[in-house]
């Protein structure tokens, strides 16, 4: 594939005016994209990788400002007027975003949304645009495209929506497709399909792809050249294979080594069972009620049995909608469920709020989203000591403060943090705070609901290590819910694979990874661990 440079970013700087003065998000970077190649821009959150592309497309938020040069075939995009820019933007350079849920307008059908840019940019008649849209939907392998033209976004799954987004981006036969974390919000198996589709489309249509991602696994399998960004600067660039084989910069090496490692040994066979669920069943009633007619019964958890021993970590693996989070909450009696749940030697199957309250401090929960799980109007100190108000009401505020200091030290945070507010912390720090909130009550069982999924790889590794240390120090039992098999392998000694509310397969971690019996487990493993390239190398 000949290499004519079609997009070159020269000395691009992006600044934002904020309350704390000017923040420089991108500090003078140079990137070039050749025709038909795949370029990956890799970095962790806050590295400026998305802002670079947003600036190039003139999509910065109102307090942002870009200087430098972004040349597309000799024209500087930054100095173009809006109408000139629109001739390039969406036509020659198009974008797909991370969140297919919000990138599509919920009020228009897929067909409408696909046809609009075609008609706008190419001036086709409605029937011709319709033909074109159908062709695009076939191109991205949407089954039954005629029917799907009339569907609304909410009627489609996340993967299908992302396919539609890709179809829209391809509508005007672009030179460059900028994909901003296009698979991050999707399940691993869907992720693999979307990447496969992108590779296939690139072979067929020959456009260049700029792939913005934090996931080195994807980069390794997908990209020709790689730029590694950190804090607004490009720290390393090069051919993908060379870069992975021989990373030069310490940061790149750190990123590559960030995959959580190690395994967890199973607890001794005679260690007591702490939390046990037998034939646990959770049914959600959807609709129905006063005038709603027959309600729809959704069996989110279908007769599942779990035995969690002291000092054990059970990993619950499955894709979104498999019922793994629901199971975790049901076992903590946060959701009404059928079946038997025992905690220690006590039957808590029918315990109500009141009866559960004294037990709550031994059964803790850590959430996925460290941004949503901390009340934005409370200081960190208030957040982590709230549980003490309930369970140890006799403590004075001084003693509570002391406990907060201890808890923060234990999770590796500066105790001064307790006077600050959640929004002043990064994702990893917030997750530490959420863990401190659980640990301050000295629990026996902690349900970890995707505690690392919203975090960068390098931070993930730190959190995994923190959780391991806490487990070793306090003989904790974890129920570790995740879709990320690499993390589960490092954390859990026993794995349960769930699909549609049922257990597909379960067993000790090593066995499941070495020798998955069920086809579904194998698919999951392949999607997550396999490292074959999607692309016939250029």
């Amino acid at each position, binding site marked *: 594939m000949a290499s004519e440079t079609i997009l070159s970013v020269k000395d691009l700087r992006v600044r934002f005016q904020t*309350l704390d003065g000017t923040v420089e998000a991108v500090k003078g970077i140079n990137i070039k994209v050749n025709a038909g190649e795949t370029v990956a821009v890799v970095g962790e959150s806050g590295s400026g990788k998305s802002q670079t592309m947003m600036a190039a497309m003139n999509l910065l*938020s*109102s*307090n942002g400002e870009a200087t430098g040069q972004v040349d597309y075939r000799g024209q500087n995009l930054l100095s173009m007027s809006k109408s000139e820019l629109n001739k390039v933007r969406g036509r020659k350079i198009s974008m797909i975003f991370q969140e297919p849920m919000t990138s599509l307008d919920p009020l228009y059908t897929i067909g409408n949304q696909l046809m609009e840019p075609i008609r706008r940019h190419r001036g086709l008649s409605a029937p011709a645009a319709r033909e074109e849209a159908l062709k695009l939907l076939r191109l991205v392998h949407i089954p039954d495209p005629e029917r799907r033209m009339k569907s609304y976004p909410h009627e489609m799954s996340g993967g299908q929506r992302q396919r539609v987004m890709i179809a829209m981006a391809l509508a005007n036969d672009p030179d460059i497709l900028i994909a901003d974390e296009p698979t991050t919000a999707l399940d691993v198996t869907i992720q693999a399909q979307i990447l496969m589709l992108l590779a296939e489309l690139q072979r067929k249509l020959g456009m260049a792809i700029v792939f913005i991602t934090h996931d080195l696994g994807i980069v390794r399998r997908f990209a020709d050249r790689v730029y590694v960004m950190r804090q607004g600067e490009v720290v390393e660039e090069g051919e993908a294979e060379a870069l992975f084989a021989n990373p030069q910069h310490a940061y790149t090496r750190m990123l590559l080594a960030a995959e959580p490692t190690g395994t967890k040994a199973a607890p001794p066979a005679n260690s007591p069972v702490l939390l046990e669920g037998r034939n646990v069943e959770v049914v959600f009633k959807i609709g129905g009620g*006063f005038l709603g007619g027959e309600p729809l019964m959704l069996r989110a958890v279908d007769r599942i049995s779990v035995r969690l021993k002291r000092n054990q970590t059970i990993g619950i693996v499955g894709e979104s909608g498999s019922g793994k989070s629901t199971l975790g909450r049901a076992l*903590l009696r*946060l959701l009404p469920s059928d079946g038997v749940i025992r905690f220690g030697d006590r039957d808590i199957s029918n315990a109500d709020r009141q009866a*559960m*309250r*004294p*037990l*709550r*401090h031994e*059964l*803790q*929960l850590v*959430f996925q*989203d460290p941004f*949503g*799980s*901390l*009340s*934005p*109007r*409370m*200081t*960190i100190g*208030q957040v982590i000591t*709230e*549980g003490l*108000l*309930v*369970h140890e009401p006799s403590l004075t505020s*001084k003693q509570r*403060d*002391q406990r907060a*200091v201890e808890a923060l030290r234990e999770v590796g945070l500066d*105790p*001064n*943090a307790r*006077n*600050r*507010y959640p*929004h*002043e912390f990064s994702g990893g720090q917030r997750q530490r705070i*959420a863990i401190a*909130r659980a640990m301050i*009550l000295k629990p026996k069982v902690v349900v970890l609901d995707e505690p690392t999924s919203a975090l960068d790889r390098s931070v993930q590794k730190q959190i995994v290590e923190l959780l391991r240390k806490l487990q070793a120090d306090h003989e904790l039992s974890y129920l570790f819910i995740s879709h990320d098999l690499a993390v589960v392998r490092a954390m859990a000694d026993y794995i349960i694979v769930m699909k549609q509310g049922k257990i597909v397969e379960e067993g000790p971690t090593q066995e499941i990874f070495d020798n998955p019996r069920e086809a579904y487990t194998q698919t999951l493993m392949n999607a997550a661990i396999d490292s074959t390239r999607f692309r016939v190398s250029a």
Partner: protein
Amino acid sequence: MTEIAATAAPPAVVGRSLWGNAWARLKRNRAAMFSLYYLALIAVVSVFGPWFVPHEYTTIYGDYVRTPPSLSAYPKPDMIQGALSDAIKRMRVDIKEWHQDGSRVVVTVTSTKPIDDRNVRYLDRSDAFHDTRIENKSPDGLEATMSSAIKQQYFLFGTDNTGRDLLSRTLMAGRISLAIGLLAGVVAGVIGVVYGAAAGFAGGRVDEVMMRIVDVLYSLPFIFFVIMLVVFFGRNFVLMFLAVGAVLWLDMARIVRGQALSIRRQEYVQAAEAMGVGQRGILLRHVIPNLLGPVVIYMTLLVPQVIILESFLSFLGLGVQEPMTSWGVLISVGAKNIGYANWLLLFPAFFLVSTLFALNFVGDGLRDALDPKDR
């Protein structure tokens, strides 16, 4: 704070709360800050102003009916003669001669009958003069010289149809309008927040029933409701609060309920539940503090709504009664006199409109500050 100092070597770090952030953002919004200062000014002037204005808002100056606003003092030189001859006529005597001597007028009167000393009170009764004395009197008593100080009075905003000072009346009206706006706003706000938060927090059937009650109240025609209240209980200041508050809390309840429903599903509330925090704790520590942002915004928009409603009712004659007054009453009077005494409309209308403007700017500023979506 001593505890912090004891445990931490570096100076205690105090984080900037969301409120702090919002305040910083608001401070950068010039329109909102200017409006805030303007509102403070209006409030101070309305509350304390009437004590400093030399006229009572109820005092009637018979000689100064519908005088136009002026920066110089009344009586004007050309008015002195008129006022003087009016007063002298009431004494049933004739003017022989008068002249002005500094701040006093000296008048010599004659009569066919002896002049009674008590006649000076006719001059004092006039709004233009005071401190009248008899300077000298002819031996036969048929001629007398009196002198009287000219009463310097300022009517910066002019006077109304019955000769009352418009400035003091406008400030007094400001007191009433702002008080009604604030009180009814707070009443509506408190009822709305408590009701809405309870409905949203309880959810399910309770929520359903509570919100249907709101729907029923919504369907009551407001004016009809007020007229009914007035018919049953007579015209009453307190009724105004009741009527206005009873109508406006409905919107607040709906907004708060929606917010409460969404906060209820936030992970931090689930986290609190997982820790065993009771309903009360969740409501007080999590739901209400996180509700306050939208509530504060809506309150700043509610207050002008109340002021307008009150003005509207007063305009119709259902609200505040004479001699008490409000901006709505003054505007209604002004509107009737727009042809020949336009200041009666202009001043109160300016106060009302500028206050409403400022309130809306502050509301907008607060919304931008508390809920920044300009990312």
